[in-house]
């Protein structure tokens, strides 16, 4: 083994060699001997959605489809608000206009042959591109069949159309209908049940519907409360309305 000790002096020496050879800062990311690094005010807080100002990503026509489809996916009923009332359309708008819509973390290099079902998503569309292409295709198909865009046809016709996408029996010219539906259903559920800071689950409507306690971090008093209703209202990352009431 090479001589020891010790790394600090050797790393300084390495730095000197690098400077001489024109490579500087090569060890800028070195963490040596000073304990765990901590910088104040460097926490990676979540990026909350700004829900003011209406739609940013969807056009007016696209928003009309999204609102109509969301109302069929999770309707408002005697149990409480549906996806529209819970803000899911705005959630989708902000998601599709951001990192998710851009497929920023996805592998998006070709080639793009059609794959087996077990190989997963193989479209060259990012989610944002997929929604754009699919909504246009859907409204075109509805115009062809019913002389009206999706949001203007009857609810049972809308349901039938969505079922056709889900099963794949309705195909779209520019997007894979099953892939479109799978993504849409997933994103609607995300918008209904995610933390309210992202624009959906407004007033924690999704969480209240089912009884989820939200972003609570200490459940110790309730672990052994067998068969007892949970006594606390849900809470989000930014608290709940009762914490921020004015006055």
């Amino acid at each position, binding site marked *: 083994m090479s001589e020891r000790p010790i790394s600090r002096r050797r790393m300084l020496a390495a730095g000197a060699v690098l400077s001489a050879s024109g490579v500087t800062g090569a060890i800028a990311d070195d963490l*040596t001997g000073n304990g765990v690094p901590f910088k104040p005010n460097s926490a990676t807080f979540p990026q909350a959605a700004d829900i003011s100002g209406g739609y940013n990503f969807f056009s007016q026509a696209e928003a009309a489809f999204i609102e109509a489809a969301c109302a069929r996916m999770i309707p408002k009923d005697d149990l409480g608000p549906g996806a529209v009332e819970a803000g899911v359309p705005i959630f989708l708008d902000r998601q599709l206009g951001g990192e998710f819509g851009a497929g920023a973390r996805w592998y998006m290099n070709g080639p793009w042959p059609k794959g087996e079902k*077990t190989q997963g998503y193989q479209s060259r569309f990012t989610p944002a591109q997929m929604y754009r292409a699919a909504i246009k295709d859907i409204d075109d198909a509805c115009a062809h069949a019913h002389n009206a865009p999706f949001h203007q046809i009857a609810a049972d016709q809308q349901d039938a159309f969505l079922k056709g996408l889900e099963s794949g029996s309705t195909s779209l010219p520019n997007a894979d209908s099953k892939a479109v539906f799978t993504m849409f259903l997933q994103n609607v559920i995300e918008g209904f049940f995610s933390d309210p800071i992202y624009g959906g689950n407004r007033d924690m409507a999704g969480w209240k519907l089912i*009884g989820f306690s939200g*972003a609570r971090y200490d459940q110790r008093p309730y672990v052994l409360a067998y068969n007892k209703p*949970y006594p606390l209202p849900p809470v989000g990352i930014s608290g709940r309305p009762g914490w921020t009431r004015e006055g």
Partner: protein
Amino acid sequence: MAQALAKTDVVMIGFGWVGAMMGQELTDAGLNVVALERGSWRDTPTDFATTFAQDELRYYWRHELFERLNHETLTFRNNDGQTALPMRHLGSFLPGSNVGGSGVHWNGQVWRFLPSDFLAKSHNLSRYGKSAVPDDMTIQDWGVTYDDLEPYYDKFEYLCGVSGKAGNLKGQIIPGGDPFEGPRSRDYPNPPLDMPYAPMLFAKAAADMGRHPFPHPAANVSRPYTNPLGVQLAQCTYCGFCEKYGCGNYSKSTAQTTILPVLMRKPNFTLRTRSEVRRIELSPDGKTATGVTYVDAQGRELFQPADLVILCAYALENVRMLLLSDVGKPYDPNTGEGLVGKNYAYQITSSVNVFYDDKILNPFIGAGALGMMCNDFNGDNFDHTGLGFIGGGYVGLMQTGARPIETHPTPDGTPTWGAGWKRAVAKNYLRATTISTHGAVMSHKQNHLDLDPTYKDALGRPLLRMSFDFTDNEHKMSDYLTDRAAEMGRAMNPREIKVNKRKGSYDIVPYQTTHNTGGAIMGTSPRDSVLNTYLQSWDVPNLFVPGANAFPQNPGYNPTGTVAALTFRCADAIKSHYLKAPGQPLVHA
């Protein structure tokens, strides 16, 4: 041309659980260690604080703690007759990135494999005869025994502060523990977690049927704990955000919460983040690793010379790095020649949902390894005569926290959306629970890893190509486990159950487990293994490759406990033997 840095004793590729353990052990031996991590530093107060850690959308569905596939992914096909295509977004498994690796977002399920698991081939042949292991099932004995690993399992459990109940202390069966486990030298460092209602309902039904339920061994600490390194963990608060999340409460054992506060203070340890290793460099004769070439955050290529190279990235990346570095011969399933990439295996899982009308279960209260488990059908704990398969898995009811985007079970016949779906979700969420099965995958001639001929990563290197499918053995075994789980579910006296068998070909889309194993396996001979039993490369003796890549096949338990035990054994061998004769094989072929 890469610029050369000053030589170090040891360079490590990757800095997750295994890197932290190796770093701690080898710096203790006085070596100068440099760890190269492609990702960034992260820690509890900055990256998953309690004020924002419980965020299902951000961490699970938007993958914030996981590998970024735009940088690197793999390609997948079920068999060699198909064209492998890229995994474009994450699904079936969730490799990590950044400091702490996948260990940051694990559940904390800490298992020991069964003594017979380490003798998978010889044990099954001797008990069931030659037909039990078909020709295309390429299982092997590990070359180590349970007894070899027992001290190292123990070391990891005490490092983590595992909460559990021993079932076999030095051969004596202890009521309330797992009677099937191998003998332990001492009990777990912490008592079991408090057990919620649903796992207790399962445990009662299972016990009434003659099964042997016991609390899941959990790296979620049940009381304040100071580990042997002097690092303190806090009592778990059952917040229900372990699996796929970082723990804000210092209650889940990770590199950050058990090792790094000590290791990061050592002057002979350097962590170099944002440093992605391109390849391991070899001497002209190919028998010695001279160091590694890596790319730093500015995109510069640097050469880090070292006497000893430890490849300790995720199992899949370890295999790819060997292939990219021309260490060993790639496996060809058609000729049977070569070994790197051979015996890739996974896990086969299924579940049974249990729906009550009259019981409130509050399923959002949870912890990653909180539950009651049965090993009656794991490994060779039951007679397989006439069943047509070998191996098994555990059946248990875990309450890991029902984050609602992921978990909102509905009974058979429920629509997937619309008013009927909404009504069913609202009715069942608080009154439903799930029994899981977690089965072994035997290695198979056709299941393997190699380099993809078409698709490249962000550095222009070939992606790993995974060719994998479940075989008859897995399906028969998983169906058998699922049937047992359904019996137990019915015995819990619910309104109804829903049985979710694993059908058809392996599908990379739905999440299953991050338990990818094999590809650079251990063994007793260079004829049938890439690594000796100390995880030392047969071809390049100053290269060690600790990780689940070493598993010859994947038993019916979560892998981390065994990865850790093999790693500690590897570190011990380096310290006690290798350093006395550096560069020499610890086992002569």
